[in-house]
């Protein structure tokens, strides 16, 4: 009975001291609200970052041919290494278990012309797997497919900005463009999350490019994707085996570091993740700072509240309130207000984040969100510290002799 009664007493006090309730509630609600918003924005920033720097598939190796540094098996050092179609086939055959797909990439520069407009663009002669490796998104039409590779078709897939630059608002699909001196049919237009530069490329089948270049069988660099299921350790092992395999094929000393470069995206990923973690730390730091500001705010208000109530507490004590009941009353009141206000701040913050959604995409805040667990944790922390902040002055007030509290000012 006393329990329910003491709550009723507290509700009365709260409802009759609106300004006080509002002040302490507002501080907590605002603190949590700002925490949620900042944390959400931080996460949004992280999302944008990830999109910028991690737009490529993460399960790939890139193999670049280089020049030998060591003499080996009768070859002198300083020999240029080149990959060719046979390498492609051999890798496919020998690593069928680990391999998801493989694509060559021959990179050139050409003037691309449509009607009277022309510009210089990077040309990438690739296989169909390249679309997955670069996470290229087709806006219309299609990417280079296996048939194109087999038939050495003169089809091209152009970037969104290439179309914008030289097509003058015309639909590029099905039109013919001049790449260098040869005519290609546009079969697709793509976009890429990697930024503007990524959208100023032209893709053609690598076999077509080989044909143009006097029917060579050289393929430039190789992009090798492993099956994600083999895991990090599997990938590391695959990397080692692939390197050994290629060195053997090209008669390169196992100790030669310069003949073939292998770039593992997983290593890049780690670097990028470190930067991501730094961002996370900044976000956390800002969050903790906001929380501390909130705690200081609620502490100040609790000190003020108890001071304002000193006389009332003295009266209550003279009427028979025990020190314990005085402390309990102040604590219950403060916990109730901080809890209620905390959740108001929490949910209005989450609501605003949801409302914002992708509206701030242009300011590098993409899909801001806050983990519900984090938000609840912050709210509970604030409630606990609000209670502690209330407890200290409440205990002091409970100790004051009623006669001191009641003394006329």
């Amino acid at each position, binding site marked *: *009975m006393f329990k329910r009664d003491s709550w*009723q007493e507290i509700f009365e006090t709260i409802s009759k001291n609106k300004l006080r309730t509002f002040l302490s509630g507002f501080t907590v609600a605002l603190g949590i609200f700002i925490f949620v918003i900042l944390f959400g924005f931080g996460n949004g920033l992280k999302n944008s970052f990830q999109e910028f720097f991690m737009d490529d598939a993460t399960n790939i190796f890139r193999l670049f041919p280089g020049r030998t540094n060591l003499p080996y098996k009768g070859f002198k050092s300083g020999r240029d290494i080149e990959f060719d179609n046979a390498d492609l086939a051999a890798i496919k055959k020998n690593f069928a278990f680990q391999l998801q797909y493989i694509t060559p990439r021959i990179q050139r520069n050409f003037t691309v012309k449509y009607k009277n407009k022309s510009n210089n663009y990077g040309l990438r002669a690739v296989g169909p797997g390249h679309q997955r490796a670069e996470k290229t998104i087709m806006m219309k039409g299609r990417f280079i497919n296996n048939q194109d590779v087999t038939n050495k078709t003169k089809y091209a897939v152009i970037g969104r900005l290439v179309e914008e630059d030289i097509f003058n608002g015309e639909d590029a699909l099905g039109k013919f463009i001049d790449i260098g001196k040869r005519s290609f049919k546009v079969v697709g237009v793509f976009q890429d999350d990697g930024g503007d530069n990524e959208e100023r490329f032209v893709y053609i089948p690598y076999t077509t490019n080989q044909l143009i270049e006097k029917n060579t069988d050289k393929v430039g660099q190789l992009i090798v994707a492993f099956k994600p299921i083999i895991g990090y350790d599997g990938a590391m092992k695959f990397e080692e085996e692939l390197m050994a395999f290629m060195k053997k094929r090209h008669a390169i000393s196992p100790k030669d570091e310069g003949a073939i470069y292998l770039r593992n995206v997983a290593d890049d990923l780690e670097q990028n993740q470190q930067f991501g973690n730094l961002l996370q730390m900044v976000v956390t730091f800002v969050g903790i700072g906001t929380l501390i500001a909130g705690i200081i705010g609620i502490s100040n208000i609790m000190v003020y509240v108890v001071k304002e109530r000193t006389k009332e507490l003295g009266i209550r004590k*003279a009427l028979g309130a*025990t020190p314990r*009941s005085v402390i309990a009353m102040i604590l219950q009141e403060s916990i109730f207000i901080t809890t209620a206000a905390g959740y108001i701040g929490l949910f209005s913050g989450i609501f605003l984040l949801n409302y914002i959604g992708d509206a701030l995409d242009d300011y590098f805040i993409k899909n801001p969100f806050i983990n519900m667990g984090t938000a609840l944790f912050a709210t509970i922390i604030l409630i606990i510290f609000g209670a502690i902040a209330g407890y200290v002055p409440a205990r002091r007030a409970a100790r004051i002799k009623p006669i001191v509290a009641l003394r006329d000012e």
Partner: protein
Amino acid sequence: MIEIKDLHKSYKIGKNLLHVLKGINIDIKEGELVAIMGSSGSGKSTLLNILGMLDAADKGSYTLDGVPIKNLDETKAAKYRNKFLGFVFQSFNLINYKTAVENVALPLYYQKVGRKERYDKAMQYLEKVGLADWSSHLPSELSGGQKQRIAIARALAAQPKVLLADEPTGALDSTTSYEVMNLIQNINDEGKTILVVTHEDDIAQMCKRVVVLKDGVIIEDKKVNQVRASEHV
């Protein structure tokens, strides 16, 4: 009802020891209406604080309704205050955000009386002091005399053994003072033991017994012919 033997109390002020009460002996029977008089510094407030368990004596014994009052911690003192004593202060000390009836019901809350019963009892005492119609008013909407009557109703609501009134008329004009004294006399007529600290002679004359303190000792303790306040109203 109240027995005090050889009560001493001193305060430390800096390095000096200020001896405020120097051996007080007083015996107050049930149903008495006692005025404690004295100029400021005579020790009358200190005596009242000790009687009210708001302060502890250094030496001597204090028995209230047969219960020895000593070695009280805060919790115990609070319980005894709630059970034995009703306070009336010069500055009323009502809780300003609570209505008249809520103020009166407050000591009952600390006696863990149920809500409904609390309200009924509080209304009963408001009626007794003639302010039942004002039950839902806040203290700020009441006159000084009304406030003091609410405070008296509050002091009575807990049904204490003794009512301690510290200058109950100190903040009131004389007409209102007599109204309040009239109420106190009526309550005393019903058998309640009441102590009134005052420095006004006319108020003291409205009690049944006058104790005069000077420099920490009782210099006079006499029965008086009670002047009924109703004659002045």
